[in-house]
């Protein structure tokens, strides 16, 4: 079954730790996105990729970085987590030429 996966679902870590949030999709989509969503608030685009070796920053500035070495994989990394990074991170993908973005279940990150 084609789907989009995010791990971990929940993460609680201390300040200064390096973390990587994983996102994988089995739909063969070229385009992938990372959004940040605070509780009860709208989604803000922080990174996107139009294909392998393509990454761009989104509309909301973020200290995180992303990579796209394989079509199906789009991990997000925080080199040194801070409490201000506490949020939900949602990954999405879209087929080239299509409009619908398919979302993963999200990773809820808490930095103490």
């Amino acid at each position, binding site marked *: 079954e084609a789907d*989009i996966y*995010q791990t971990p679902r929940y993460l609680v870590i201390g300040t200064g730790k390096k973390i990587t949030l994983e996102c994988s999709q089995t739909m063969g989509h070229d*385009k992938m*996105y990372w959004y940040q969503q605070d509780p*009860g*608030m*709208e*989604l*803000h*685009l922080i990174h*996107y990729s*139009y294909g392998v070796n393509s990454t761009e920053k*989104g*509309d909301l500035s973020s200290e995180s970085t992303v990579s796209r070495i394989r079509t199906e994989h789009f991990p997000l990394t925080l080199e040194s987590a801070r409490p201000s990074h506490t949020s939900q991170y*949602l990954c*999405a993908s*879209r087929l080239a030429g299509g*409009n*619908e*973005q*398919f*979302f*993963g*279940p*999200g990773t809820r990150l808490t930095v103490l």
Partner: protein
Amino acid sequence: QQQVKQSPQSLIVQKGGIPIINCAYENTAFDYFPWYQQFPGKGPALLIAIRPDVSEKKEGRFTISFNKSAKQFSLHIMDSQPGDSATYFCAAGSNTGKLIFGQGTTLQVKP
């Protein structure tokens, strides 16, 4: 220019009622207007979407009304059910493929 404004922030209706959620945009380059439904602990899922060349689109109990001149669009949920209780987001997209989301509306449908 890039904002999408959504209202109300929250909404409570009785079962069978017709909640209406409104969105307004500014950028006339937007040409794709989806509505997403999000349950707690889940990612958003596409509910219904419209393009500006039509004024209304229905899918089951969900209807989008679109007013291009006013740059507004709205979601109507007919015969609402407790299972429709969720957060609803409107969004606007252009040929860049990026979406700008509204602030979200938390809907509660009481039995």
